[in-house]
């Protein structure tokens, strides 16, 4: 008997479209079955629009291959033999095995792995912390997606910032507070293909239609590049040199906002010329604080102390604080030193990058560098937005510093149409991310001590509460300083997506005593688990989003057999692992997390979404002037000095370079001319497909139809040199291994580079080894290394390596 179609308003996030979510949808459900999805025209985020992946949900929710029952492995790992078990059996088995590991080796011996921007980070942290392990791991080498950018921006600015498409206001572009960016730099970003980083990609197309001009930084001729005023086709991995070149032009030609630099940065703080370090109050006066810095008052010829905690001068502000120049001081011990300002130190580094040198490094003509820099600086307001290419290089932090300095010094920080500070809605923080502690947290500092990489990589300690992926992998083999015995992998693909060097990951998984995978379909990763649990799509769960604005709920529309939402699975196990777990139901937990908003979960469900009002720290603009960013409500930023730091005090303390600069990545023709002889082409990976979110969706017919094969984009001239025709199968190979792709001949890539699609496996192929869903033939990560993370533990060479290519033989097709 057929019932009426029910229309459920809800919000997308992760499993299903796979993305970082945010779109308002109307789910049409009949007899507990999804019949259609329409965009919600009233939702301010997407205003009725939707992507192909959401529109294909009817092929996803009821897919014949969906996991519908918990499974227990019965053959060897990788043999693909399973037996269905009940949830009770699954929970009991997991509880017993994980408690045995905890009893024998300690809770830190379990790793908890999640994918990128997923909705489950709070819930995986909840489980890990209830179990007692601080080792929550994002599986990319150098955690090289988004988190590092967040941490790096937080280091110098105290808060993250994104381009302004009026997403802060329910009436969006009609809000009188908003201004259209005159110019936008799109830096290593094909945002409209997958909407990463909690942004709706086509907002930029909205802006372009309203007149925003685009500068694109991308080695490929992307869609944006085709429509740009300037396209800067740089050599991958030279982004920081280009950003420094922009700063060079802007400072040389005095196109920067001097007032912002004077008032809101630490430009005037003094640096000793003998040590090259910041002069602190402790060096100047007896009993002085080493966290306080010093400014020179040219009028009185005396030093004035900058009280970092107060984010202000101690006592009277200097009449004429020195911005540029040198001064001589006598220290507490009577020692005489000469100091110069942070501004001069910063400029001395920037001077190393005139456009001509930038051209030598990056391949972008000096003239274009200078013109684009001028255009950006003279456009007001202007925004920069960056993609994962920024994270996928080991020296990402200096690069992020350079880009942050660009928006700050051009007066574009937290202004309408500029780079606007993005905060969790109403400061609702479910779990620890850079800049917030979160409601879900470890019980004590003691529990955090064994977190892998915490003591070695200080940014991880301060801003990025994850373990180091690279060190964790090493530790599985070395068991030093303690053994890793198990892994909980939740809607993540360490084998087919996240993991570089997947053969090494396979060996690691083989070595572990106990592996649980939670997913919606079998994947290459689930083949290495002992227990596989069936999770749900966003349509089958109650949840919420506070990732920036608005605050909104995800509302359950249906269920699919025995599948359980991630948070329900983790909630049940958290209760079993932690006798002190304080919540009776998930809704109790949601209410607790949502407290700062003044709304309960059910109240928020009734409203659909809530935007923070003017005067809230999550509502722009110019919050540093209004005292809305710091806990003490003083004007300034949430940094150690209260100022945007052109010279990073934290990086100085950490023994890392405090000012932005370029470092040549490890595997380029410049750093490794020896390898370039055998591997003459630059290998770049990860160009986005609108059909897939990373390794997902290869099994959804409408989506696979859009992008049926693993492809390598190759320039027609390069292909001709290698005798490769369009659509022919070819091998991409380097010193680590090889993978097979279909050649797509296109002039969108330069002749010296190929672009290999990532995340490829073929769900239609044999699950068991040696096929592993065809992954060993088409996973490009086999050519990319683990263990080359940046000096600060984050960033990794994923967007730039080296390779050679050749046509596949007929027997290999």
């Amino acid at each position: 008997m057929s019932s009426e179609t029910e229309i459920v308003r809800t919000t997308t996030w992760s499993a299903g479209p796979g993305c970082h979510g945010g779109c308002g949808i109307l789910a049409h459900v009949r007899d507990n079955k999804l019949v259609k999805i329409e965009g919600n025209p009233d939702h301010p985020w997407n205003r009725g629009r939707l992507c192909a992946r959401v529109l294909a949900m009817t092929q996803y929710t009821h897919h014949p291959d969906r996991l519908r029952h918990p499974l227990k492995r019965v053959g060897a790992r990788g043999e693909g033999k399973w037996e269905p078990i009940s949830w009770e059996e699954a929970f009991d088995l997991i509880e017993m095995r994980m408690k045995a590991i905890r009893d024998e080796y300690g809770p830190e011996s379990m790793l908890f792995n999640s994918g990128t921007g997923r909705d489950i980070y709070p819930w995986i942290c909840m489980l890990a912390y209830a179990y007692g392990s601080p080792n929550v791991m994002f599986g990319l080498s150098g955690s090289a997606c988004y988190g590092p950018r967040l941490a790096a921006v937080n280091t110098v600015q105290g808060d993250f910032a994104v381009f302004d498409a009026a997403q802060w206001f329910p009436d969006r572009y009609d809000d009188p507070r908003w201004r259209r960016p005159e110019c936008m730099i799109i830096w290593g970003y094909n945002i409209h293909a997958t909407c990463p980083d909690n942004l709706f990609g086509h907002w930029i197309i909205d802006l372009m239609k309203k007149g925003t001009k685009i500068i694109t930084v991308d080695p490929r001729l992307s869609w944006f590049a085709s429509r740009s005023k300037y396209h800067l086709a740089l050599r991958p991995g030279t982004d920081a040199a280009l950003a420094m070149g922009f700063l060079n032009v802007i400072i040389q030609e005095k196109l920067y906002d001097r007032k912002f630099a004077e008032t809101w940065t630490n430009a005037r703080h003094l640096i000793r010329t003998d040590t090259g370090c910041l002069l602190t109050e402790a060096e100047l006066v007896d009993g002085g604080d080493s966290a306080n810095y010093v400014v020179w008052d040219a009028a009185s010829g005396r030093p004035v102390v900058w009280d970092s905690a107060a984010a202000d001068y101690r006592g009277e502000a200097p009449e004429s604080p020195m911005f540029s120049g040198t001064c001589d001081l006598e220290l507490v011990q009577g020692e005489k030193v000469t100091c110069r300002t942070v501004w001069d130190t910063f400029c001395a580094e920037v001077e190393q990058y005139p456009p001509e040198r930038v051209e030598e490094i990056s391949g972008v003509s000096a003239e274009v560098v200078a013109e684009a820099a001028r255009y950006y600086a003279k456009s007001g307001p202007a925004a920069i937005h960056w993609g994962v290419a920024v994270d996928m290089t080991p020296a990402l932090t200096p690069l992020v510093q350079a880009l942050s300095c660009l928006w700050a010094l051009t007066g574009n920080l937290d202004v309408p149409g500029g780079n606007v500070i993005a905060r969790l809605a109403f400061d609702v923080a479910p779990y620890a991310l850079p800049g917030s502690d979160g409601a879900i947290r470890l019980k004590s500092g003691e529990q955090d001590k064994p977190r892998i990489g915490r003591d070695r990589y200080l940014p991880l300690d301060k801003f990025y509460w994850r373990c180091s992926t690279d060190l964790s992998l090493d530790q599985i083999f070395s068991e030093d300083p303690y053994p890793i015995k198990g892994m909980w992998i939740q809607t993540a693909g360490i084998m087919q997506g996240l993991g570089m060097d997947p053969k090494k990951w396979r060996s690691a998984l083989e070595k572990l005593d106990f592996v649980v995978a939670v997913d919606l379909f079998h994947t290459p990763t689930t083949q290495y688990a002992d227990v596989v649990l069936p999770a749900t799509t966003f349509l089958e769960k109650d949840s919420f989003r506070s990732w920036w604005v608005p605050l909104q709920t995800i509302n359950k529309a249906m269920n699919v057999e025995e599948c359980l939402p991630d948070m329900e699975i983790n909630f049940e196990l958290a209760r079993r692992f932690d006798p002190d777990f304080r919540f009776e139901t998930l809704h109790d937990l949601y209410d607790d997390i949502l407290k700062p908003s003044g709304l309960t979960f059910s109240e928020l469900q009734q409203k659909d979404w809530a935007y923070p009002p003017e005067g809230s720290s999550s509502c722009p603009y110019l919050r540093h002037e209004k005292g809305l960013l710091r806990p003490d409500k003083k004007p300034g930023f949430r940094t150690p000095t209260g100022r945007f730091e052109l010279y990073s005090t934290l990086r100085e303390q950490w023994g890392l370079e405090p000012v932005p600069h370029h470092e040549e990545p490890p595997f380029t023709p410049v750093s490794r001319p020896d390898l370039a002889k055998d591997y003459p082409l630059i290998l770049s990976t990860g160009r986005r497909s609108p059909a897939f979110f990373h390794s997902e969706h290869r099994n959804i017919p409408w989506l696979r139809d859009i992008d049926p094969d693993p492809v390598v984009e190759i320039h027609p001239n390069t292909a001709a040199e290698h005798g490769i025709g369009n659509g022919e199968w070819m091998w991409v190979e380097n010193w680590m291994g090889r993978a097979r792709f279909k050649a797509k001949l296109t002039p969108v890539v330069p002749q010296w580079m190929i672009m290999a699609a990532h995340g490829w496996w073929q769900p239609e192929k044999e699950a068991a080894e040696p096929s592993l869903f065809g992954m060993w033939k088409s996973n490009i990560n086999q050519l990319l290394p683990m263990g080359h993370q940046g000096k600060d533990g984050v960033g990794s060479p994923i967007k730039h390596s080296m390779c050679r290519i050749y046509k596949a033989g007929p027997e290999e097709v």
Partner: protein
Amino acid sequence: MAEKQRYGLLIDYEYCTGCFTCQVACQQEYGWPAGMGGIRVNEIVQNLPKGKAYLTYFPFPTELCILCKPRVKKGLEPACVKHCMAECMTYGPIEKLAEKMAEKPRMVLWAPK
């Protein structure tokens, strides 16, 4: 006798980003199997002088496009137009669309069967 009013789709291919929303929106609406549907997106890379190129996407209404008559009767926009993320598709009477087309370059007007 008055001619029957004909309707069409105006597509601004300057802003079509190749998101394939229209293609899948149509497949969802009518349950077409993969490989079939009322609109297909094509990629056209235009080679230009001096080694330059211009990347274009171009949604093509097929023999199966019925301009979403059942939706339009209910007062809804065609599924492709409604969901298009670049908002580069307009549905309407051909004369009206032709007027709109005069206002901006890089447009194409389709009148499916």
